[in-house]
Structure formats: structure tokens, C-alpha cells
């Protein structure tokens, strides 16, 4: 039941939200219970095979977190924290590197990181959930359980305990859901059709088509993931939860350092707080800083997948960050126009995204071989037709990435015209989504 599917959009979520808002208004204390049940139903709709394991892990983590909160011994608290971290990483490692890929529980990477953030914050602050229900509601919240944003307990604790959904929340929620749906259905899924065609015809395609395919994928991964994030944040807002933003026009970055402050922000934040800073961050001299940066990004790569290509992706991003840090430390400044810098960063990031699409060294080699041909034409009339068909989406993707972006949406205030436009876009996007087969979100595979 993915969030852009017919059943979710037109049955599950509207039924859920209407009942939930009614319960929230009249029986506040039951709202979390209903929400937790709905979240479990949402999760098991993807399959029940690994549900018992994840539920057991949930209970175990909660029980241990009580021990962490209540224990007066720092040693015991630390040991219990490490135990939970090892347990969660162990489960993640097992499913990622040992078990069959078909068994991989959906969203496990995000669940693991969220759980670790909870337990570490609990260790530091001793401010965990007051009840199992509260913990379960937080840990299973369905808008973000599959692919983030990675939300900290401290960000939700107040609303978990008491919340009211106001008309402004409804408007903001619907606004974000609409934008998310639009990015996913009208832009990302349409880009996918041509991109998929080109990548499956790489061996017979031209160099121009290889470049187009890479460009399409670069825009698709952004609009797909940010679309999902928008939807998650919007759905949560409709329930009264305010999630942190997860993207901020990443393709407008003029450096890799800036890119990682704008892309998957909650993941960057997590890596900074739970990997980079515990390793020492930038506190122990330049050399150690570079190593810590490098390790952090390698972890990011490994988190995304078990293939060598993901590791290479992480290593290359780490290398870029290190190079920029070295340049900054030595006050080496490149005074090119910002547009040039942004273009270079965009091109380099797009090249690195290819590893997420092809996912094997052999296919990367095939792509490089294709590019080396130097053929700048289209291989068939069908290819041109696909491009024509997808051209509105690529234009919209470029406009979104370079002109509009998340900030402009956040600042959109309720007004009659905004409501009318949103309503039309929302209805049209849903109708459009019903016509076609849903394309899974890219980040679901992580």
C-alpha cells in the first residue's frame, strides 16, 4: 500500500483521517492507540513475514530504554544503549548483507536509524516515552516509517502527548501532500518511463541518450524522494505532527558541503550527530576531521546498499567533502560565478547518482562505453516520441529544482486563490495517478 496508490489515497487514508480527527477531537487519549493500530496495518500491508521480528525488536527496545531511563549506573546505561544499537544494526546488517534481498523489511534502514537516535537521545537526556503506547506511536508513525524523514523523539514528544489539528494544519498538510503527489506522479513517474526505456536499451542507444538518461535519473531521484518527503510531512501535518523539512533545493548547491545541508537533511543530521560528532567531528585537528568526514560518508554509502557501487558513491562524496574542507582550511577559494559552481556540483552529483540506477560495476562500464561512442543523435523514432512525451516533466523538474524549490512552497500562505489552485492540482494529480501503474519510490529499496 504505497502512498501514491489508489487504495491508500482513496480508501485507507481518507477513512483513517476522518476517524482519527473525530477521535482526536472527542477522545484525545485514544487517538494514539488508533494511530498506532493504523500504522501497523499500513506496515503489514507490505507483507507480514518480518512483522513479528520487528514487533519483537520494538518491544525489546522499549523495555531496554526504560532500563536506560531508570538506571542510575552510567555503565549500565551505556551498556544497554550499546546493546540496543548493536541489536538494531545487527538486524539491519543481517537483512542487508546476509539474508535474501526479497526478505528485506521495508523501511528497515530508516527504522534502524530512528531507533538508534531514540535510544542515544534517551541515554543522553533520560527523556524517553512515558508509555509503550507513546513509544509505539512514535516508532511506527506510518507517514515516514518507510523512507523518512528521520524524525527525533524530541521533535514529536509534545504533540504525541497533546495535539490539536487546526484548519491551518489541514491547509498546510494538504498543500504539502498536493506538492508531493505532483512531484511524484506528474514529474518523477513520467521521467521514469523514458529513463527506464533508455537504460534498458543502453547497449543499442547513443551517447546523447546515455546523457539524457543520466539527467532524467538525476531529476527523478530528487523529485521522487522529495515528493515522498513532502507527502510524509503533509500526511503527518494532517494528523497534527510537524516534521522537520528534508530537502531544500539541493541542486542549487555550489559545493558538496552545501549539497549535504540541502539533500535528505534529516539523514545528514543523523550522520552528523551519531557518526561524525561521536568520531570526534572537527575537534581533533584537520587530519582527523578529514578521516571522520570520509568515514561518515562511507557509512552513508554502506547504509544505502550492500553493493560495491554504493560504497564507491559514499567514498566519492566523502572525498569531495574532504577536498572542500582542505581547500577551506587552506583558504583556497575559487572565485567562479555561482552559476558555474552550481552547474559543476549538479553535474558531478548527477554522475554519482548513476550508481543508484545501475547498481553494478558492469553496468557502469557499459554506460561509460556508450558515452565514449560520441554519438549525438537518437537511436529511433520511438526514443524521440518518448522524449517529446516526457518533455513537460523534465521542464517542470528543472523549474522546480532551479527556480521554485521547497522554500517557496513552505512560504505559501492560505488564500482563496491558493486553495482553489491546490484543490485543482490535487484532484487532477489524483485522477492522473489512477490511470497508470504506480512506480515504487526509489528510496523504498533502501
Amino acid at each position, binding site marked *: *500500500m504505497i502512498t501514491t*496508490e*489508489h*487504495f491508500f489515497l*482513496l*480508501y485507507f487514508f*481518507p*477513512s483513517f483521517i*476522518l476517524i482519527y480527527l473525530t477521535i482526536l477531537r472527542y477522545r484525545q487519549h485514544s487517538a494514539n492507540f488508533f494511530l498506532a493500530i493504523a500504522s501497523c496495518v499500513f506496515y503489514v*500491508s507490505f507483507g507480514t513475514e518480518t512483522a513479528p521480528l520487528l514487533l519483537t525488536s520494538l518491544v525489546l527496545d522499549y523495555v531496554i530504554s526504560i532500563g536506560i531511563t531508570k538506571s542510575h549506573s552510567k555503565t549500565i546505561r551505556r551498556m544497554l544503549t550499546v546493546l540496543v544499537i548493536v541489536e538494531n544494526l545487527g538486524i539491519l546488517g543481517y537483512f542487508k548483507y546476509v539474508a535474501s534481498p526479497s526478505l528485506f523489511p521495508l523501511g528497515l534502514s530508516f527504522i534502524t536509524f530512528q531507533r538508534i537516535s531514540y535510544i542515544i537521545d534517551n541515554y543522553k537526556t533520560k527523556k524517553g516515552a512515558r508509555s509503550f503506547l507513546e513509544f509505539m506511536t512514535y516508532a511506527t508513525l506510518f507517514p515516514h516509517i518507510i523512507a523518512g524523514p528521520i524524525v527525533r523523539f524530541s521533535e514529536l514528544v509534545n504533540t504525541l502527548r497533546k495535539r490539536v489539528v487546526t*484548519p*491551518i494544519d*489541514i*491547509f498546510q*498538510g*494538504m*498543500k504539502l501532500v*498536493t506538492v508531493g503527489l505532483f512531484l511524484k506522479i506528474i514529474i518523477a513517474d513520467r521521467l521514469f*518511463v523514458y529513463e527506464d*526505456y533508455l537504460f534498458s536499451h543502453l547497449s543499442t542507444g547513443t551517447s546523447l541518450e546515455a546523457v539524457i538518461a543520466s539527467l532524467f535519473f538525476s531529476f527523478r531521484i530528487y523529485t521522487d524522494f522529495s515528493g515522498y518527503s513532502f507527502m510524509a510531512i503533509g500526511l503527518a501535518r*494532517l494528523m497534527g505532527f510537524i516534521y522537520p523539512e528534508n530537502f531544500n533545493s539541493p541542486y542549487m548547491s555550489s559545493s558538496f558541503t552545501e549539497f549535504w545541508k540541502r539533500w535528505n537533511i534529516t539523514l545528514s543530521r543523523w550522520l552528523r550527530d551519531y557518526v561524525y560528532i561521536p568520531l570526534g567531528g572537527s575537534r581533533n585537528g584537520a587530519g582527523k576531521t578529514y578521516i571522520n568526514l570520509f568515514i561518515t560518508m562511507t557509512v552513508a554509502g554502506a547504509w544505502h546498499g550492500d553493493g560495491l557501487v554504493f560504497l564507491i558513491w559514499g567514498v566519492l562524496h566523502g572525498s569531495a567533502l574532504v577536498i572542500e574542507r582542505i581547500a577551506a582550511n587552506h583558504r583556497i577559494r575559487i572565485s567562479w560565478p555561482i552559476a558555474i559552481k552550481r552547474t559543476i556540483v549538479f553535474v558531478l552529483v548527477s554522475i554519482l547518482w548513476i550508481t543508484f540506477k545501475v547498481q553494478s560495476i558492469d553496468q557502469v562500464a557499459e554506460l561509460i562505453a556508450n558515452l565514449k561512442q560520441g554519438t549525438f543523435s537518437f537511436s529511433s523514432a*520511438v526514443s524521440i*516520441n*518518448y522524449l*517529446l*512525451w516526457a518533455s513537460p516533466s523534465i521542464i517542470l523538474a528543472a523549474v522546480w529544482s532551479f527556480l521554485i524549490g521547497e522554500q517557496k512552497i513552505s512560504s505559501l500562505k*492560505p*488564500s*482563496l486563490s491558493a*486553495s*482553489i489552485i*491546490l*484543490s485543482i492540482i*490535487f*484532484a487532477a494529480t*489524483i*485522477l*492522473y495517478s*489512477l*490511470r497508470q501503474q504506480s512506480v515504487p519510490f526509489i528510496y523504498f529499496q533502501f
Partner: protein
Amino acid sequence: MNKKHIMLMPFIIYCMMFLFEVLTLFLYFPKPMYFRAWEYVSNYSDKDAGTTPFKPLITYDGEMYGDLLRYASFTPLPREYRRQVFIADEWGFRNEPKLLNNPITVVTIGSSFSGGAAETQDMTISGLLTREYNIPTYSFTSQNVQNVWEDRRFIDNTPKYILLPDTVDGIIRSYWNYALSETDIVVTRKSWSSRYEWQKEMDPFPRTYESFAKYAKRFSMLRQLAFDIRLHILNTLLSRNQITSLSTEQVVSYDEDTGQLYFQKELDYPVIDTGGVTTDDVKQAIAVMRQTQQLLDTRGIKLIIAAVPTKAHIQGTDLSTLPDNLVITHLEKRMKEEGILYISVYDDLVSYRNNNVDVYYNDDTHWNEKTNKLIAEKVARIIRESLETSP
């Protein structure tokens, strides 16, 4: 409109869409989800779709248009609407109920060509034989010779002929339609007293999440609206030629001069000879037919084959450029040599074509009632001649 209403407007629209979807799922029946009667009457139950092709005792009497229009993303023109009546019997086959209460002379088998997917009930081969020629014919579409052999009903009420009408490609390549092995298996099919009895047992309202989600999507009025809106916008802004040439999938080819639609794959190899079918394939097919006929002889049944040239062949090709020794003519010759009853329609269809008479529907993959009438007439002649010569 106060500020609160303004802020809630998108959410209210969402709720209205939800209510519309739920109410039309549960309150609006039958669903207009089908682009032809075939989908309305077909059995999609997980339990018995393999043995019961249509919903038992269903009746459809309404409009339909060709299947190729959908592939081409065309909205039907007024002249492309046809009335179609479709009736299924108590076993879920396309016959009048209780047809098997009387002796049967012919059983027709095979695919949707045999079943008359594009035809109204009376204009199917079985309908024509039964009504116009008083030759009781049972339509056993989707089934094959083996199924006839094993079916209790045809052991008790043995037909004299099994008729397989199909395209020449289907005849030569689809052995499973007429291959027969001698078995003692006897299949007793369930007959239903009403459609609702069948539905309650075989196609109940879905109760699991997955089956309900599939059902809800299939019968989604909003989804149907989305399809219709897209089709209408496309056909308003663009001509049929433009729609086809801009298509990314190139599944269908459109001939603007004649208004004919073809599957592109069929048009790429309009004559099966160029598609890799050879005289060796004919030899193999006939060997299987011969074996089948030998077995059928033990029950006094004759196999009749009617091989029709494909639409791309008969209507999409310049016939004057075709060589004489085509596979279809070779098939006819070999069938005659082997003594297998064969309905030859090729020359008649060429003659129709030369007189600018269509023998296939322009908007459908299936041949039209002219071809059905031709086949029915020739089958009737064979049967009459056989009755005259038999002792």
C-alpha cells in the same frame, strides 16, 4: 466564504472524492468499466476462471466498439458503436441456456475468434449455424478438443463435428487447440441455476485487503473518469494520425486512408510466411490433426478446421504483390490430401477485398459477421452433404 472554509477547501475536495469513490463502488451497478462486452461478461474469479470463461447466465445487451481503439487511445466514432448481445448459459459458455437439453451437431472451440468477441450473439458462428441453418451448435470457446473429449456432457450428447475457426497463424502454431490424447478422464462441470448463486460461491465480495484493493481499483469510477477525460482531451486536440505517430509504444498502426487499425506486430509480418512459419510447421500441425481425427473417429466425430488469413494479410497488404504459394494455400492443399475437413475462405475473402468489402472490423482485431457467415455457410454445406451421402 470565511478563512476557515478557504483553508479547508482542498481537504473538503479530498473528502468528496473519497465519498464519491466509496458510494459508486457500493451503490452503482453494473459498472461501466468495460470497453467491450467481453470484459463485462468474462469470468475473473480466482476460483473457476480457467474452466468457466464467462459468468454463468449473464446477459449483456448494450453498446460496444473495437478492442483496437483502446490500444490506440482513440475515442470511438459514432459509426464505430455496435450493438452487442451476449448471453452465457448455465455453465458459463456463450450459448442460450438449456441448449444441451437437445442433441448437438457441432461444438465450436478455440479462442475469441471462435467465440465472436466482436459479434452479437446471433452473428457468431455457433449462433448462425443454430438459428439460420438449424444445425444445433454449442459454443465451447476457450476450450480445446481435449476438453470436448473429457466433458461428460459431450460423452452423453456427442456432437458429430468439432469446429475450430481461427487465424491461419493460430491454427498452425496452437497445437493445444486440437491435440488429443486418449484418456479416461471425465469432467463433470457444474451448472448454475442463477448468476447470483455462482457469484456467491465463486466470486464473492473480496474480503482480504489485497483482493479488496484490486477490486476497488478495478471498479473505481474516478479511475474510469480519468481514462475517459484523458481520451477525450487527446482526441479533441489531436487527430487519429497524430495520436498514433506520437505514441511511445507503437503497439497499433493506423491507416488514415482506410481507417483501419492493426496490431503493429501483425503488420510487420502480415503474411505469416514472412513471420517464420514454413511448410514444415504445416506438416507438423497436420500430423497432430491426423492423430486427433483418428481418435475422434472412435466416437464418430469429425474435426473441421477453418483457417482465416490475418487482418494484416487480407486488409493490410496489396494482395497483388503476394506470391501464389503462400502457407495458407499450402495448408489447404495438405488438409485436402490428408482428408481432414477444411473450410477454405481465402479466395472468397480475397474476392470481398477486391470489391472493397471489409471482412474484418476496422477497429477490432476480429473478423466481422461476413466472415462468420461465410464459415457458417460452408460448414452447413459440409454437414448437409455429409447427411445426404450417409446411409
